[in-house]
């Protein structure tokens, strides 16, 4: 596949609506200017609808089929944005009701060297550790340019201690996605408040829980990311580090869980997010967001607003160990005093 490819002809569907498919199963074939390409399912799920037409050219990024996925994939819910051309591989787009749209393959930058497609990965020269890393990170060694002696793939070639090409691509896409979302919120009139927390429990779990409890008193502040209409739940997106950059798993109605349940859920979610996976059910439905910067002993007094969220929090910490909570509000939904009261309510609750 070349970078210049913009369309491909849909040759064949391997599935029909209602089929249960496994991750990696071939869904359809596309003919490009160079080769025929099989497109695999990025996740387990059920095919809902085939939307492409056989024999007809399809544009990059346009839906080819829609499937309901039930496995964990990494993505963000920014409410039906156009797909980003930098995103790697077929992107799974989820909407609030969770159908996934499988799109025509997005062409990623080709590997620095063209290897014969039939090369067996075992025939590629690579040091043992590089093989282990490739397997761990799902890197196809055929796509890796060897820089070691005798054309051998080194640990550095597959990322080693730095990031793999795949990781970089995903991170670039990830950042682009976040940046694009935030670009949309830049023009929104907004204001931020901060306050040091002198006492009380300011661990992340209790902030999530209490912030949800505060927002539950204001149904007008929990709106749909799709159309801005009010929703009946509170969805707290928490920003967590992952190997592909930031992940934003959404904790729905965390105030209705016990603190220990929430702590367990947070721990398991954080762990899988670190490995680049977020449960599909936690990818959508955010109505607010929280950044926790305490472990860096940092504070952001101006939390950023994500699209269709009218509030956003950061928990920070200064060098004397004092916690600081900052709130940003969308002035179209809240006025200055509303916002100040909201932050006050949270800190009191803590």
């Amino acid at each position: 596949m070349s970078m210049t490819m913009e369309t491909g002809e849909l040759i064949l569907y391997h599935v029909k609506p209602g089929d249960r498919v496994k991750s990696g199963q071939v869904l359809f074939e596309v003919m490009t200017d160079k080769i025929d390409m099989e497109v695999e399912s990025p996740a387990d799920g059920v095919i809902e609808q085939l939307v492409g037409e056989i024999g007809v050219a399809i544009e990059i990024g346009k839906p080819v089929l829609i499937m309901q996925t039930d496995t964990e994939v990494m993505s963000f819910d920014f409410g039906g944005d156009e797909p980003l051309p930098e995103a790697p591989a077929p992107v799974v787009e989820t909407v609030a009701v969770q159908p996934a749209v499988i799109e025509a393959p997005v062409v990623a930058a080709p590997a620095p060297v063209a290897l014969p497609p039939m090369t067996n990965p075992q025939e590629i020269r690579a040091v043992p550790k590089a093989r282990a890393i490739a397997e761990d990170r799902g890197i196809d060694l055929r796509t890796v340019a060897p820089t070691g002696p005798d054309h051998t793939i080194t640990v550095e070639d597959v990322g080693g201690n730095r990031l793999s090409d795949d990781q970089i691509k995903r991170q670039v896409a990830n950042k682009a996605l976040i940046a694009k979302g935030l670009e949309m919120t830049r023009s929104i009139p907004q204001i931020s408040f901060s306050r040091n927390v002198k006492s009380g429990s300011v661990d992340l779990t209790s902030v999530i829980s209490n912030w949800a409890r505060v927002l539950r008193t204001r149904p007008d502040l929990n709106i749909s990311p799709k159309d801005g209409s009010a929703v009946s739940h509170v969805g707290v997106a928490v920003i967590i580090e992952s190997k592909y950059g930031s992940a934003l798993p959404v904790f729905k109605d965390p105030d209705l869980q016990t603190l220990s349940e929430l702590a367990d859920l947070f721990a398991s979610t954080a762990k899988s997010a670190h490995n680049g996976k977020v449960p599909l059910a936690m990818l959508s439905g955010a109505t607010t967001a929280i950044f926790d910067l305490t472990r860096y002993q940092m504070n952001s007094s101006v939390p950023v607003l994500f699209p269709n969220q009218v509030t956003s929090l950061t928990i920070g910490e200064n060098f004397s160990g004092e916690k600081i909570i900052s709130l940003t509000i969308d002035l179209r939904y809240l006025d200055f005093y509303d916002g100040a009261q909201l932050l006050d309510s949270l800190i009191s609750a803590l």
Partner: protein
Amino acid sequence: MSDRMLTMAEAVREAMGIAMEEREEVFILGEDIGIYGGAFGVTGDLYHRFGSERVLDTPISELGIVGAAVGAALSGMRPIVEIQFSDFTAQAMDQIANQAAKIHFMLGGALHVPLVLRTPQGSGTGAAAQHSQNLEPWFANVPGLKVVVPSNPADAKGLLLSAIDDPNPVIFLEHKLLYKIPGRDPVPEGAIRIPLGVSKVVRTGKDLTIVATGIMVNKSFEVAEKLAAEGISIELIDPRTISPLDTAPIFESVEKTGRLMVVQEGPSHAGYINEVIAQVSGSASFGNLIAPIKRLAGMNIPIPYAPQLEKVAVPQIADIEAAAREIVKNWR
């Protein structure tokens, strides 16, 4: 006094003297070890201290010497044989490999052979092909022999005392260039014993593991110190005994550094270091290798005479340095 800097010859002599004082069954036999003091001066004054019966000069009869030692060992003695050059063990190989090594196993375990065979080996003296070999693989390939290759005086003393205690035949290979140079570490006084079969981490590092024995430990150490200034951190492991071979610290080190270089003076083909490589290749640490294993060994030729020829036949410090630098630089 803990700062005694001895040469290996002095340390080996001290160990033999201690063992002979400790047990009257310990005696030394070999060619020119008595009043002459040994071809390399290792037995030195022991003849004067312990007399001609316990420091027993023999005719030039390597097979007979080792055979007599085997028979004496079977009869309650603890002989230490000195063979003047390791090359001459070829003369005695039946008694070493067919008799001493096998008696305990083959004869059902009722008899055993507490025998130490010490012999100088290695190149660097201009003595050419029949006086310069490193023969540890000959012995290491015979089940029933323990093989010790000390790299410094302190180890030589402790290992030799353990070898003399051991109820089995032990081949003790001393590099002749180490005889006259003091070690880096002082030699403790008294009957210090270092167990056979325990590798020593000579120097810790994180970029490259070097496994070496004998004089190659000294050469590798020098390289490690030099390259440390360039930011290359070398972990140096001296197995000290080749049979049995203590692999755990080697695996652990490779796990840490991801790079392995093995250095041996003897010819590369079928050398003992190949066993080190095989063991690492079959261990879990293999999966952590970020570089092909580097083998640095002697050329597969008899040791030549002329100094400029002898030098190229075995790894020199510059070779070790270049190889170490290359492996760390090339494989990241």
